[in-house]
């Protein structure tokens, strides 16, 4: 029984670790690289969407709403596309179901709110989020494909063909 043995042991641990790199990620300033298929927010790209609503059928929570209307050429005009992020469990089944990869994971994960109803995103909100994502990521989709910079609303453009 030596007096101060415990303190010496503790100080040795401090000395051992003092030259090691810091593991803490200073979150708001720097962010960790997240894996490509991490369960982050869904991003919906209107220009890839055909309105088949396979995503809505595959969603176990039923948090995706798709409302379409046929055009003259047989394609669909997506009138409403809404995701209820209050309900969403970020399982990514919609991204696996979508044949055109119009809905993908990889969005932001810091969308905290004080009013839960703000988590209900309608079509305009989702288009805004997708544009924000593409601008931040040099117009590359989360799956690695290159996006086309467009100023015309994609649905309108498709209608002219």
């Amino acid at each position, binding site marked *: 029984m030596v007096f101060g043995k415990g303190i010496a042991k503790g100080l040795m641990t401090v000395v051992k670790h003092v030259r090691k790199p810091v593991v803490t990620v200073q979150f708001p300033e720097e962010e960790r690289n997240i894996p490509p298929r991490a369960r982050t927010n869904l991003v919906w790209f209107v220009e890839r969407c055909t309105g088949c609503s396979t995503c809505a059928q595959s969603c176990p*929570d039923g948090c995706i709403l798709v409302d379409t209307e046929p055009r003259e050429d047989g394609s669909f005009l997506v009138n409403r596309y809404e995701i209820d992020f209050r309900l969403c469990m970020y399982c990514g089944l919609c991204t696996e179901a979508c044949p055109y990869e119009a809905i993908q994971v990889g969005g932001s*994960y810091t969308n*905290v*709110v004080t009013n*839960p109803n703000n*988590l209900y995103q309608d079509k305009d909100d989702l288009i805004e989020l997708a544009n924000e994502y593409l601008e931040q990521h040099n117009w590359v989709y989360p799956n690695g494909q290159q996006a086309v910079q467009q100023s015309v609303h994609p649905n309108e453009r498709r209608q002219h063909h």
Partner: protein
Amino acid sequence: MVSPTIDTGGARIPLLDPVTDVEEELRSQLLVSTVDKVFGWARRSSLWPAMFGLACCAIEMIATANARYDLARFGAEVFRASPRQADLMIVAGTVTWKMAPPVRRIYLQMADPKWVISMGSCSNIGGPFAHGYSTLPGVNNVVPVDVYVPGCPPRPESLLAGLMLLQQVIDDEHAHNGRKRRPEPTGDFSRMLPEGDPIRAELESLFPPYLTSSGQARDRFTGALPHDENFYTSR
């Protein structure tokens, strides 16, 4: 509600409330607002969370407290096992109906001022169990929630972002002289639980006016019945 008055030998003069009775322009110039600002700074810089991990979200909450994300950078690392010592409740996980009265009771046991973060889809609105029979559709039916963190489970970064938003909320509260903008739960469970349900009776007795089904008044902090010798031994 009776407004506070000063008794000056017969005539009762109503006491001015610094929040509602002082004019908007004057309010910011009073000394009270400066002191409040200091209080707000102190409160937001040392949030002590109560341990309230209910499901898988708790794992992410623990990860947030670890060295990689280090909740201590925001002064919120002291997870308290006792609600008496905590001023922030992070409801992390699925709140079942069975767990709803304890959530409410622990919230009531926390000392004012107190805040609540709802973490994860389950406690936000019920998540994948929202249409189920056993899960509370949103913890805001039981306690007033300040910040909602979406995710299933949310990443530790999301919880940190939620904590930073809560710090802003606390600052705003003090900028607006302590007015809380979060909605209080109504305590009306008639649309969710059937008549005569024991959990419904227990929940309703934990809301104002804190009466049990037999009309007895409960202690508003502990939910205990007065003069009930068998209260602790009977359950």
